[in-house]
Each structure stands twice: as C-alpha cells, then as structure tokens.
C-alpha cells in the first residue's frame, strides 16, 4: 500500500478544498493511504461532510501553518511544526512515500530540501511545470510540455542541466506515457554555441547522451509551439519564462473581457467563438493535470497549484500515486547512474 502525505493546510482554499480533494482520491485509489497533515480538529470537521474511505484516510496533527505570502526561509525556521514541515518529515522518516502540497512553493521546496536526500549524481533538485502547447504527445495525447527547473534553485551548472534533462525525460516517459520525449535546452538561439557557458557545456554533454532524445537548443517562442516535450533551463530563467507565459495568458483573458464589455459586435463575435474558447479552456485546464513534480530527491513531491480546488488536488494525488507505482524516483536514479557510469567510462577510456 502506498502512503501519500497531503499538506492539508497549504493552498488558497485550504483546508476545505484540499481535504475534499484527498477524500475524493481515497475513493479512486483503492490501495493507497492518504495522510492528511494539519489542524486535526478542522480536518475532522470537514471529512464527515464528504464521501471518502475512512479506512484509507489518516490525520496527522500539525500546529502551525505557513501562509502563501510568508517568506519561505523565515517561515520554515520559525515554524518547525508547520503542516508542510511535518509532512516532509513524515516522508523523510519513511512514514510516507510521497508528498503533495498546494502551499507556499518556496516553503515546500525548502522543507523538502532540508529533510530529504538527493539522488546520487543530483546536486540540485528541479521544480517542473507544465505548459499547454499546440502539439499533443504520448499515449495520453498529452497537450503539455514540461519545463524544468522553474525556481527550485537560481543557478545551474552544466552538470545540473544534464541531470534536469534526464529527470524530465524520465518523468515525461512515465507520467505522460511518452516513450521517447524530445528534450531541449532553452537558449537564445538554436546553435550549439549560443547561450551562457553552462548551456553550451550542457549541450555538448547531452549530445553524447544516448539515453535521451536530445534535440538541441530551442528558443522561447518554440515553447508554446511544442517543439520540445521537455524544456531544460536554470531555475532563474525557468521562473521568468513561466511567469511571463502566465502573464500573457492573463492579458489575453483580460483583453477578451474588455472586448466583451466594450462593443456589442465584439461580444457577439466572442459568443460565436465560445465553443472554441471552451475547447481551448479544456485543453489548457491545469486542474486536470493536478500538479508538477519536484525532481531530484529520493522521494517524490508533487506541487499542486496554489489555487487548487478539490478536483485539482485529487488529480495531483493521482499523479503522485502513478509516479509511485511506476517507481519514478527509482527510474530517475537508475537513469542518472547509467549516464554517469558511461560518462566516467568515456573519461577513463584510453584515446584510440
């Protein structure tokens, strides 16, 4: 039986929607235990209101909560009994197998980083995000591409970018059922020599990697086109990219709202496009995807969107369950070990 720890107090709609989502997941996942960490009294008042399996849900009390707008490092230091810290502890001590939270991203990453062990060969963990693209991919016809790192760490060296590429490829293969995901480095040009030193070096290393389908460098405009299934970059760049993409999407919605209010003709045009807009909305519905993983640790963390409601949280738990069943962390670890062994062999082999 897998044990998925859920930070019940993390997120804009916590604990109500988080508990409801976990309850829903307890019915869908027949042999998984859900450990809800947070204010036991509050959780205990929500659970009886929703359908769930009482034998598969456990409550673990935690006194403190880290709010969405708190400064991560200060909050983690000041609140050792916060739900996210206790949840990460449970996984670290082996009482849980994976962690799901919709809470303060920085605090989540920090809580995991301070308690969990990195996989051999990984120096920095990477937070991944998904972005809807024109292209569909894999067995599941997945419209999302994976971008990593989007902010777990600021800087990344060539070896880190290579590790991110291997981890992202393993995730896309297992979760999106994409047998040979196209992996690319994000740069300011498609040529191998373009970009900062770390990207140029990573490019050279990845060209040697036979384990993954490395397609070279891509530029920012290639991301929404879906040219690559896994886009690799440093946390600093990734965070800027993701925030900008979110901002563009919000601006488009804002413009549509403005148009709707401004002119009857524009309103009519939008009404005519409504089914298409709905299809687009369905396609880009982040709630169905659930959450994005923090990769590189021996344990799995799925970060659900801060605005997650029950459906999104339930889907995030299902993603965690799927990753556990497929032994995602083990696969990543084995992939990295294989890559490093071949790299070491290449270094020690005498020149022909």
């Amino acid at each position, binding site marked *: 039986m897998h044990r998925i720890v859920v930070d019940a107090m993390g997120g804009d709609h916590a604990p109500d929607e988080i508990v409801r989502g976990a309850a829903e997941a307890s019915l869908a996942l027949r042999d998984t*235990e859900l450990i809800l960490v947070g204010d*036991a009294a509050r959780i*205990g008042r929500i659970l009886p209101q929703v359908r769930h399996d*009482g*034998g598969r849900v*456990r409550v673990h009390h935690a006194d403190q909560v880290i709010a969405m707008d708190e400064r991560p490092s200060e909050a983690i230091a000041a609140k050792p009994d916060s739900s996210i810290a206790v949840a990460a502890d449970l996984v670290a001590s082996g009482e849980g197998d994976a962690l799901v939270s919709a809470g303060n991203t920085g605090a989540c990453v920090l809580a995991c980083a301070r308690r969990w062990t990195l996989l051999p060969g990984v120096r920095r963990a990477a937070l991944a995000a998904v972005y809807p693209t024109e292209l569909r991919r894999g067995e599941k016809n997945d419209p999302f591409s994976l971008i990593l790192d989007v902010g777990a760490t600021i800087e990344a060296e060539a070896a880190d970018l290579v590790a991110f590429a291997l981890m992202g490829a393993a995730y896309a293969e297992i979760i999106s059922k994409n047998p040979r995901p196209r992996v690319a480095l994000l740069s300011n040009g498609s040529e191998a020599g373009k970009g900062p030193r770390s990207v140029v070096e990573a490019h050279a290393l990845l060209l040697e990697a036979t384990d993954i389908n490395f397609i070279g460098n891509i530029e920012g405009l290639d991301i929404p086109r879906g040219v690559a299934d896994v886009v690799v970059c440093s946390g600093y760049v990734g965070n800027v990219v993701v925030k900008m993409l979110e901002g563009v999407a919000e601006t488009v919605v804002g413009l549509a709202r403005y148009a709707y209010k401004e002119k009857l003709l524009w309103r009519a045009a939008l009404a005519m496009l409504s089914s298409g807009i709905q299809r687009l909305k369905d396609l880009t519905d982040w709630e169905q995807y659930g959450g994005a993983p923090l990769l590189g640790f021996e344990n799995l963390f799925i970060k659900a969107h801060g605005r997650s409601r029950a459906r999104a949280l339930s889907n995030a738990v299902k993603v965690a369950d799927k990753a556990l069943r497929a032994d995602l962390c083990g696969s990543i670890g084995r992939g990295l070990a294989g890559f490093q062994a071949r790299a070491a062999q290449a270094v020690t082999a005498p020149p022909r």
Partner: protein
Amino acid sequence: MAVRATHVFRWDLDKTYLRTEFDTLRDLVKSALETAQDKKTYPGAAALLRSLRQSPEHRICIISGSPSQMRQVLAAKLALDGIEYDEFVLKNNLRNLTRLRLRALRAQVPYKLPALLESRSGVLGTPPETLFGDDAEADAIIYCLYADILAGVVSAGELARVLEAARAYDDQAERTLALAERVRRGDAVRRVLIHLDRRSPTAMFAHFGARLVPIYNYFQAALVLYADGVVTADQLLFVAREMLESPEFEIPTLANSLQDLLRRGRLARAVAEELIGQVQTAAAGAPDPDSRRMAEGIAAAFSDRVRHLGGAPPLERPATTPRLDYVALVDAEYQHRRERKRRRRSS
C-alpha cells in the same frame, strides 16, 4: 412460542453482510444467478457474526429484502461462512408479483418494519438489540423508527402517516399498526450500525443521533461493540485477523478506522487507550510469533493514530437521541431514490 435472549442482533444481508450490486436490472439478474460460492462477504462481517454467536444467549436474526426464492443459496452461503442463526426472514416477492403489488417489490418500510416487529414479538422480555444495515436504502430510517416504536415514542397516528408516506398497501399498514400496538415497550435498541457501502458522507446520518453509527468496515463495527461491552478485545482481534486476510485491509487501514471513529466522537479516547492496553497484553500472551507480531503491530499503529490526533477534540454531538420526523424522512428518501433512478437512466 416466545424465546429467551440476552441480546438480539438483527442483520440485513445485501450490502450489509454480502457485497451485492442491485442498482440495475442486470445486477439483479446476476445476483439471482450467483451460487453460494460466488457470493462475497464483506471482510470481517462473518468473523463478527461468529463472535456474536459465541454467547448461547445471543439471538441472531437475519431480515433481508432478498426474495424468498433465494433462501437456499443464501442459507448455503451463510453455512459456508460458518454462520449460525436463529431466524431468517426473506421477502416473498413472488407473491407480490402474482398479486400485482408492484409497489411492494421495492418498498422497504412496509416490508421490513412489520418483519422486525413480528420477530420482536417472539422474544421474551425486553432484551437489548443491535441492528446492522447499510446506506443503500432506508435501513437507517426503518431501524430508528423500529427503535422509537419499541421505546414508545411513536404514536399510532404518526405510524399510520409514516406508512402512508412509505406507500404501504392497506393490509400492510393494518398489520404493522397491529404489531406495533402489541409489541412489548422498552427502549431496547442500543445501537444501529450502518455499513457505508456507498461511502455516503457520515454527516448525512448525524440527525439520527448517537445511537446510530455509520461504519466504513466491520472493524469499526467491532470497535463500537467493544466500547458497548458487547464484544471482548479477543473477539475484536478475531475480526481484525479475518480482515487482514483480505487484500483490502492492512494494519494501517484498521488503525485509520479506529482514528476515524475517534475523530467523529464515536469512540472515546479512554476506550481506545484501554483497548491498546488489552491488545498489548494479548501480544505478550500470544501463542505463536505471528499472532504476537500482529497484535504488537496493531497496538503500535493504534497508539500512533491516537497520538497523532494531538489534542484535537472530537466532533461534538448531542448526548440524547433527537425526536425524528419520520414522515419527512420517508418522503425525502423516496425523492432521493427517484432522483437516483432518474440520474441512472439519463447516464
């Protein structure tokens, strides 16, 4: 002739003891064609029934809405599970069909209520009762109504209105009213346990008061009966052992079931702590290493679950059983059933 008993246990079968699907015609046909070997018991249900049977003064009555034509196969299934019973009442749906009483085919209240009252009339004195049902149909309403009739808080006029709301035929209503008039009064129903086959939210049953406890599984039933002083710690472990043989249950699942009752205020923390002590004692005196390991594992998991609740208070609920408006409850249940049927058809 009336019989003597120190405690009466009444069990429903489908969705309470047996894992049965009868939401669609196909399910009904499938269920009717199943052999005794095909039928599946909920983990722990047979062990609990066998534990209750251990006292010779306990009376086990099975009252099911299954058609009486299934008596042979159901009796064979109970025999396979090693269940002995004192009474086995089934619904004569063939007779309902031949008399074109189509309403009676599905109606639960006009069938089950008189069956319960008639069975009660056959028992000497006013022994306590524990009733087992499920959330699929109207068991909670029927059992509470029965309990309140025995307690003498339902007048003949109110009962007549309930039977009318339940769409009882005139002769069914007359018979029920006569049985209710005749039955010996006494607040005998100690506990109503509702198996959450549909996983209905437990808050849906809050208005029935403290007497009715919704349960997710039979370990929870055993825990409630342990707290009631009806089963011992050894019998509880017997139920746990049977459940652990099923792939659906592991020690953490049992421990979570205990924690769920604590959170809902259906089991006192002191009772849980007393139980942990008894399981630890059982572990120390276990006859073999496997039994010892199991008991130790259960005691440790239970302690963890109690501790991990912190100081969180359980849900508050009124100590007394509230006065229920059965006409409204029956009406609501009827509407709910129609709504479900409509949804099923449209999907």
